[in-house]
């Protein structure tokens, strides 16, 4: 039952969702609403996995005084500060907790992602080459989009924003829709395989 049990459990849970979609009876609705709530609650209680993994990794690093162990102390201090301070303040929306969040997490998150501007600038300068006909088309489309989506595009040529809109509305939509249709159908096939027990990768290794 170590492997078969979870597969059967997943199939029963999934069947409840599918059957409730096919037969709209009050009794099935009650069961499905309850199971929906169970899903939300289960997801909420799984969140400590990241915390435990970080602790295991960084406590080991500190105890063995591996390279950079001082930074591990900073990581754990930051983590426990937000947990303990949060528990003390009693609410996520508390003004002081919000102050700490806006002073630390917001700027660090925003700045880490803002580094991407430099990386994309440097990478596109270095690697974006019109080596083949396909690459040339990609390059031209990118350049037209880059200029057309900003106000200076209209100043350079009044029709440029219209061309940019046309690219987004037609060839972009066509390409992305084709990819998304394929991905959706693939996702549905995988979902069906999971429900009937063919796909078992999520169960992990031995045992």
């Amino acid at each position, binding site marked *: 039952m170590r492997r078969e049990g979870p597969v059967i459990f997943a199939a029963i849970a999934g069947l409840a969702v599918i059957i409730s979609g096919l037969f709209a009876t009050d009794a099935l609705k009650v069961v499905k609403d309850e199971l929906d709530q169970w899903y939300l609650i289960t997801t909420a209680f799984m969140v400590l996995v990241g915390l435990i993994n970080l602790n295991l990794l960084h406590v080991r690093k500190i105890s063995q005084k591996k390279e950079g162990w001082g930074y591990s102390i900073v990581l754990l201090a930051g983590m426990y500060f937000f947990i303990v301070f949060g528990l003390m303040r009693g609410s996520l929306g508390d003004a002081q907790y919000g102050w700490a969040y806006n002073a630390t997490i917001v700027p660090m998150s925003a700045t880490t992602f803002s580094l991407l501007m430099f990386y994309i600038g440097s990478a596109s300068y270095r690697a*974006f080459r019109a080596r083949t006909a396909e690459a040339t088309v990609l390059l031209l489309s990118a350049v037209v989009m880059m200029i057309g989506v900003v106000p200076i595009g209209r100043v350079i040529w009044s029709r440029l924003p219209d061309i940019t809109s046309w690219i987004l509305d037609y060839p972009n939509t066509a390409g992305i829709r084709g990819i998304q249709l394929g991905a959706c159908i693939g996702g549905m096939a995988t979902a069906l395989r999971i429900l009937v027990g063919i796909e078992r990768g999520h169960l992990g290794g031995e045992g």
Partner: protein
Amino acid sequence: MSFWHTAQNLDRRIIYVVLFLVVTYVLIKPIGLPIVVNRETQRAYDAVDKLAAGSILFVSADYGSSSIPEMLPAEKAVLRHVFRKGLKVIAGGMWNEAGAMHDLAWQEVSKDFPDKKYGVDFVNVGYKPGAGVLLERMISDAHQALLGIDFYSKNFSDLPLMGEFKTMKDAKMVFAFTSGDPGEKEWVKMVTDPLRMPFATAATAVAVPGQMPLLQSGQIIGILKGMGGAAEYELLVKSPGSAIAGMDAQSATHILMVLFIVLGNLGYLMTRKQTT
């Protein structure tokens, strides 16, 4: 080493410095390039504008603090529009910083609307886990799905607006601020398609191409595209903010990047010619 060889092999730190200087200079000395509202932003604006006073708009912050420069100005502009129209807002989201993002927007916008009260005109229910399943649950019983407490840990029973919002069917429209997954697809398949509810989005520029098929099929009414879309909405609600202020720097940086790409390609073509 030839000029063209150097042209396509500039040290990356030179590129970083030039980008940094251009952004800084244009922010300090803006050019004043005109911003024109595009069709998709206008459609999103018109959809909100059509709602009758007292209608409930569900606003979803499906973005994190990393997308603040694009999303927060858009959310503030939409809130200003909504409050001027006399609409009411339930603010939630599928990303874990949703509550904090709505808090930032409310704290700033409410200063300009002292008659708007928390709990009466605006409720921040914050993030709840579950993504698409959460939305499905909110169609049958929003209070149970949201466990009856808001972002500030207040009970729904203490918030008069929550008495008018029992299920998603009580909202007249959904406006989602999206930057990835979960996002607009969950809203479309779980709520707005089944309930045939008007749905508009403000998307980070990187998410815009992926949303175009949904726009073309009519499942999304209008999209605010990145910081440009936010600037256009600020223009429509006549409240210039950081999005409008940032567009000149955006323009200058895009031109600079195109020049870098052209330089790199010219260097490549000329050195290839020289070797052949």
